[in-house]
């Protein structure tokens, strides 16, 4: 108990004194996970939209694969990305292994199925009559797609939160492709593992608090957008 308490006190001291190492690590974490989430959005939402409105052979298989991918173990992603990016691997000439870019690639692979799967579910929940009405009112195909996108934007934000949460909290993939190099590829989760190994629990606790605070701040931000959207959206639905 003593260890936990003194650890938390030391951790708060480090945070208040703006320990530069901790903030550098936190900032790199935000950049990497932010990039992975944005790329995941750009890929995942169109994929979910496409799957919700189109019908083609093999569609169910793809949906089943995406749903499986939502639970993709990060260490498996890390292993395969590392195998490809290692210097002698098929993509070794890109020289990306042990760089932040490699970590973004791994996190994108983790995030895309989460966002695609949840956004597909969101699109499929859109009231079909909204689409019919839009078409009846003479909307083009593109305009109809925009209607679906608008109608489902609240659950879409939940998809973004889930994707961001999945990326910022994983350690297996970023450790394998990033290597936890001090000052280059060390992020909050890999730093927590390393500091715990070295017995520096107070630093590990400080980093954990930063990780939780970061995750909380992003989710508060997204929740505010979502709930404000919910309020102004209610009065004039498609009726």
């Amino acid at each position, binding site marked *: 108990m003593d260890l936990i308490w003194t650890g938390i006190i030391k951790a708060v001291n480090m945070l208040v004194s703006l320990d530069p190492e901790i903030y550098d690590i936190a900032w*790199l974490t*935000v*950049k*990497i996970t*932010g*990039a992975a989430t*944005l790329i995941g959005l750009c890929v995942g939402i169109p994929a979910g939209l496409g799957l919700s409105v189109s019908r083609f052979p093999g569609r169910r298989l793809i949906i089943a694969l995406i749903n499986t991918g939502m639970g993709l173990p990060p260490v498996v992603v890390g292993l395969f990305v590392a195998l490809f990016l*290692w*210097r*002698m691997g098929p993509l*070794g000439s*890109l*020289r*990306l*292994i*042990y*760089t*932040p*870019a490699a970590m*973004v690639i791994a996190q994108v692979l983790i995030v895309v199925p989460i966002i695609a799967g949840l956004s597909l579910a969101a699109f499929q929940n859109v009231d079909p009559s909204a689409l019919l009405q839009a078409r009846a009112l003479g909307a083009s195909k593109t305009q109809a797609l925009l209607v679906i996108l608008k109608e489902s934007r609240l659950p879409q934000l939940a998809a973004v939160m889930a994707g961001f949460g999945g990326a910022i909290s994983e350690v297996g993939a970023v450790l394998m492709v990033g*290597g*936890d*190099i*001090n000052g*280059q590829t060390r992020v909050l989760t890999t730093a927590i593992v*390393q500091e715990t*190994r*070295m*017995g520096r*629990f107070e630093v590990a606790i400080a980093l954990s608090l930063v990780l939780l605070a970061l995750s909380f701040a992003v989710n508060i*931000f997204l929740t505010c*957008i979502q709930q*404000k*959207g919910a309020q102004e959206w209610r009065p004039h639905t498609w009726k």
Partner: protein
Amino acid sequence: MKNSLSVAAAVWLMGQSLSAFPAAAPPVAAGDLILATTTSLKDSGLLDVLLPRFEAASSLRVKAIAVGSGEALRMGEQGNADVLIVHSPADEEKFMAAGFGKDRKELMTNDFVLVGPSADPAEVRGRTVFDALRAIFENGAIFLSRSDGSGTDKKERDLWKLAGFEPKGRWYLETGQGMAETLRIASEKEGYTLTDRGTFLSLTGRLGLRVLVEGGKDLLNVYHVITVNPGRFPETNISGAEALMNFLMSPDVQTFIGQFGRDKYGAAFFMPSSKGPGDGPER
């Protein structure tokens, strides 16, 4: 309004993210060097002190990847690393004989110690390492094994073999993890384990374990630095690897290694192997 706010935030985040990418610029400058090393060395904190000095003096950027000695040698065999620091002498000799390495120099030593709970249920304190293993085996006392293909793991297996026992059973626990984690588990389970002295020292005061058996040539732990043979893998950064090797073997750095840990833990983690580049034992 809210939308424009979130779009602005997204654009800002995207801009920040892109600026973080080495991918935007050529991802790897000519001066990148991949050092595959052991977890025990990374956990000791020595690299965190030495590598920034080397980088400042050489304009190379070192990527130190902490893996077990077994995996480090595999990375060398496949051309995925430029330089290795490992402590698994028999495997290293095979590695050199197969032509995967260019040069191999003895960097430093420390020693392995057998640690366990101070209550010492198997009564191994002060015995030779082989007698101690016999006592643990015969009492079925809890023993934690790394079982991760690391240099320490290889050493432990060799010691069991030399002692004439095959460790197996409910008392013999294989963690598959690094030294620091394994020490922590040994401490929690009140078991015995074999550790390098450096990692044990770095966790002083945080474990309920004591050094029970130490000393003797059977417990010597030798670290070598190996440059990967560029004849096999032209992509490897041999000039960088040799620069790092020369840096590590230089008199200043060797002296520094001999001091590292003294101020904080009262004992040095490692004994340097040479006083200068000239008289380093070379193989």
